[in-house]
């Protein structure tokens, strides 16, 4: 009962903040609403018995990634312009996609049994690592996916570093770091 009340409060905050991301004109306010939404989503994760996922949500998304996003908003002076129209031509493609996705998620949610049960532990540290890194033949085999994902992220990072280095291979870019 108590957990259900907490769940409703957190769900309202999450959805409200998510709506604010779309409705706010200012990019920085949008980013802040996204942070609030993510933190309360982490609270929901903790409530339904996976504290590990919740903490990782706070640490990685609300902490690191949103910090980078605010950094970019500030550097690119995006915060100065708050007169961007909310809808333009691109929205024609995005809005149907969002509606279809919402329909799919709603369908899946309606079909699955909705039992709100806070007592079972779904994502403790031990359980998560056991599921992810089960190298047994009969196991789910997530560890292969995990390794491949790691490689993918690594290659993405290398590509980003290469893209960020202008004039690749020229003499100036080599000497840039030493001068300052």
């Amino acid at each position, binding site marked *: 009962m108590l957990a259900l009340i907490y769940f409703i409060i957190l769900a309202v905050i999450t959805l409200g903040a998510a709506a604010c991301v779309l409705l706010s004109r200012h990019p920085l306010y949008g980013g*802040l609403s996204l942070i609030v939404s993510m933190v309360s989503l982490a609270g929901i994760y903790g409530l339904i018995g996976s504290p590990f996922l919740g*903490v990782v949500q*706070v*640490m990685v998304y609300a*902490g690191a990634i949103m910090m980078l996003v*605010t950094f970019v908003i*500030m550097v690119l002076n995006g*915060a100065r312009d708050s007169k961007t129209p909310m809808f333009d031509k691109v929205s024609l493609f995005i809005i149907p996609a969002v509606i279809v996705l919402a329909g799919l998620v709603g369908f899946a949610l309606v079909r699955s049994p909705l039992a709100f049960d806070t007592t079972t532990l779904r994502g*403790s540290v031990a359980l998560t690592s056991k599921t992810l890194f089960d190298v047994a033949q009969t196991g789910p085999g997530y560890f292969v996916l995990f390794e491949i994902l790691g490689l993918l992220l690594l290659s993405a990072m290398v590509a980003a570093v290469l893209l960020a280095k202008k004039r690749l291979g020229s003499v100036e870019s080599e000497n840039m770091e030493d001068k300052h």
Partner: protein
Amino acid sequence: MDIIESKTWIEWLITIAKFAFCFVPVLYILLLIPMERRGAGFMQDRQGPNRSYIKIPYFGKIRLLGYVQNMCDGTKLFFKEMFAPAGVNKVLYYVAPAIPFAIVFLSPCVIPWFGPMVFEWGGQMVRIPGSIIDSDVGVLLLFGFSSLSAFGAVLAGWASKSKYSFLGALRTSSMTISYEVCLGLSMMGILLLAGSFNLTDIVSWQEHHVWGIVAQPVAFFCFLIASIAETGRAPFDVAEGEPELVAGYHTEYGAMQFGLFYMGEYSHICINSFLIATLFLGGYAVPFVTTETMQAHMGGSLAILCGVLAFLALAFLHMIHRYSKKLAATNLTNRFEILREYKLYNIVAWTAVVVLVILAFFAWFFYNPQSMVIGGVAVGSLSTALGTALIHLLVLVVKSVIFCWVWIWVRWTLPRFRYDHVMSLGWKIILNIALINLVVTAVIAKLVGGN
């Protein structure tokens, strides 16, 4: 309600009383500000602020060795006008200082302040964990909170609409991201050895094997440097570097709003030194003595504790004696006032010594609590558990105060780094050392311990 009946009243009492530990970082501010000011004075061969006093009728002035300065600072900050420059973003300008200060109250919840209290109550064994939240995510929660607290500085810099604040905010956000990576990676070695994220488990691993600083010396230094950098103090004060950016992200703040940032910074030091003490210096564990041994000889342990405190009081008395001898030889005009104050300290400290020695005597000879056996496990009484918790707490506080002093020591010793030096130190040196350390630790742990 079954949730209330699930625990006895004594469990509820202790569980709720543990929330008082949320205020430890705020109390540490009171310790850290005089420590910083007098410490800076000590390093630069001057007195430091020690002249503010309270006047007590029929006695004279009391200066408390400079501690009264705290009250003056606090009073001044509280009664100043809250002022916002024209053109700031009003909402974010007022919200921003509250964020780091609010996080301060959340952060202490995962630190184990004492070992799990196990005692007998009403014929049953009761176990109360030493941290406010005893979760298996433990230290990750602390990292999550501390990564959120940087948003305060970032928003303050943006909302101030000033170029200096803005640059300070940008530097804060980039530095937080870089050094949190180092912090997390250098911590992973000890987590791998202990096999848990839970800080209580980590401390009990250290208690029964070796301290983290012995098992992971490289990681300790990486962690120390990264956490000094993360608090944003000199020599890593690029975010509020006075020669370049006036005061960085809090240039436009005054009065208690500035005070909130200031207190947030000091509380961050406190939390980080508690974290280092817990991860690498055995946390609440008493050196060379396990908790079981201590509980088996509770009276003796309490007597030794009283003895140590009495020794500290004697050291204080010696200090006062030397001060007053030096002072009596000078011809300062206020020397009689100060000597009278020192006489008061003499009386207080001698009383403390006598009381502590008597307490130690009684604890040693007359206090010998029996343990009961419940379900094949020997379980002590409530008073044994409370005594153990007290000793654990004091040990943890001593360890963390040592690290607080390291912060001040580093600040007043090293010259400050340039921004690009800080970045290359973080990404090119510390990160790589921490990564190599993690790999080596993993290989050795696999070879020695099997799984």
